[in-house]
């Protein structure tokens, strides 16, 4: 599904990612954890195609295609979805119209006819129930005046509507209280399928109580320094990041 090979990336001339390798197979859920500033969100942005990020080395294959050659919109239409850490508010653009445009752009890309109003509404209703989001939010402008939890639910709703092959969830748990976290996590779990891969980016282990990952990776100073199963996350929760980062820093000094 996704194969990241030795990715190096700069932001404003500063190297943030220093050789990332990662393979995600269809249906797998991977969690990337790490302390602040380790490069987690940079990795998400590089994969989504954010233009300020310059990839200096390495390659990324997404379903066999060279991901880095694709525009932001083509990556999305190929089936990559990024749930934003900070979803932007866009006054004046109705959420429903926006999602309809996005769904139909993807269909067009796949050579399908656009959904008519009836089919689109039916799909909306189904997915709204799945992620527990109300009509009132969707008739408003994109994220305008939404609470933190509502914004994250809207992200998961868009994921449900766009049915991606790979979803990257960038700190989707941040800023959520426990009830909101549960609703969002339930939505994500309902969207797990045997072919859909998920990359969870998170600072804390608590999201992983709700969404069980197949693999956990620790990102530190732009590299994956440790990989394991979900037990690694529990160990991190217990001992903190220090138990890994100290040994890395020591070996770097030797």
């Amino acid at each position, binding site marked *: 599904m996704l194969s990241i090979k030795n990715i190096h990336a700069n932001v404003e001339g500063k190297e943030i990612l220093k050789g990332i390798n990662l393979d995600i197979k269809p249906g797998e859920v991977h969690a990337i954890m790490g302390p602040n500033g380790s490069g987690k969100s940079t990795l998400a942005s590089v994969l989504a195609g954010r233009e300020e990020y310059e990839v200096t080395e390495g390659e990324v294959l997404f379903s066999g295609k060279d991901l880095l050659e694709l525009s932001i*919109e083509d990556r999305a239409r190929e089936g990559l979805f990024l749930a934003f850490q900070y979803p*932007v508010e866009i006054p004046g653009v109705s959420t429903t119209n926006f999602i309809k445009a996005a769904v139909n752009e993807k269909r067009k890309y796949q050579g399908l006819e656009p959904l008519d109003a009836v089919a689109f509404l039916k799909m909306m209703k189904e997915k709204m129930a799945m992620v527990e989001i109300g009509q009132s939010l969707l008739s408003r402008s994109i994220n305008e005046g939404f609470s933190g939890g509502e914004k994250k639910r809207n992200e998961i709703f868009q994921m449900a509507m766009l049915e991606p092959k790979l979803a990257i969830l960038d700190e989707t748990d941040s800023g959520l209280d426990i009830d909101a976290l549960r609703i969002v996590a339930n939505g994500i779990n309902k969207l797990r399928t045997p072919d859909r891969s998920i990359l969870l980016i998170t600072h804390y282990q608590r999201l992983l109580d709700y969404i069980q990952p197949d693999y956990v990776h620790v990102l530190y100073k732009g590299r994956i320094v440790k990989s394991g199963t979900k037990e690694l996350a529990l160990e991190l929760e217990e001992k903190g990041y220090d138990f890994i980062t100290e040994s890395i820093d020591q070996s770097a000094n030797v």
Partner: protein
Amino acid sequence: MTNVNYFKDQFSALQASDPNELLTGIRKENFDTFSRSGLPTLRQEEWKYTNISSLFDKDYEFAGDGKISPSLLSSLEEMRIEGYQEANELVFLNGRYAPSLSAIRSPETQLIVLPLEEAIDSKYKALVAMHLGQSSSYIKDGIHALNTSFIQGGLFLYIPKGQQLQHPVYIYHLSDAGQHHTLSQPRSLVYVEAQAKFQLAETYRTIGSCEGFTNEVMEIVVEADAFVEYYKIQNDGSNAHQTNTTHIRQMEKSHVHTVVLSLNGGMVRNNLNLVMDARGNETHLYGLSLLRGKTHVDNHTMIDNKMPDCYSNQLYKSVADDASTSIFSGRIIVQPDAQKTNAYQSSKNILLSELASINAKPQLEIFADDVKCSHGCTVGQLDEEALYYLRARGIPKENAEILLLHAFAADIVDQIKLEPLQKHTEKLIYEHLSVS
């Protein structure tokens, strides 16, 4: 300007042919002003961003008799505004009101429509004498005087007391610049009696490949407790230039609501004057310019608060792409007697190209002490974060930009309260933004 002699000859001929003393008097006074001051130049503060005199390196002439050809009629058909079946449709051909092309659908009890010359010969003479030419005391420049020097074939509208006009008035200005560079000078006087309600929309079209210049003046008197909505839609060719003045005098507790929409055109200057001649008025002025190519649109507003307790709010938005220019100058005067004035002004702009330019100039002149006035101006680009977000959902960049521009325009379009006109403008904006 090279053809001063042409205007002199035309003026003398017009004056000699017209026995009407009221009109010849107003014309003479203004032709003197025109002869003395000429056309405005960049040296004049009020015109510092719009070089109208540069257009007159070409020799403009008035159009002839305005023969009505099939192509004129088909252009007229094309410029009709949605909802026209339910509207009074008034046509100006080459700057003169053309009754034979117009359709009046309101009964006479609700709306009186007369050629200005006929109004002067009717029971409305005193009204016309009192109000025609009031704008000259506010705008003393040569281009305004040039219109007034040639008042001819004007329009008089009268809405009787308490009439809630069901059919709006649509005014179509059609100019034929097929033979030579053509100057059209429409002139109208609108009198809205107390407690009446009235909706007016104007739009413009120039045909032919020479340059067209429309120099329009409209004066509107809004009596006590009356309600006026005024809409101007500008979507003409790049050879179509325009200076227009809408001069509105508000009497007690009246309400005025205006929206000026500018899409395509050459060099355009819109003067919108509001004179608060009694207390308790409410005024809302909105503008939206979505410009590209070399289109130049200068919106100039002036609110003269002479009496207390008036409220005014202005929101002008613009987007300038390519080598276009957008200007907003808003002047607010609060006279010593105008206590408790509330006057707000805001200009929001998006600059899309390095060759485009945006100028905003607020001008507050406050001579009373118990007032609330504010102004604000922003110039920015499209929100990069929003663009990224939309593209990350698979929406192509161009479409994402169009979505954001529609969003920017939406709150002004919402201010068009006349529903068919709102739909009409949504369609125009959609077409305008889709072609790039």
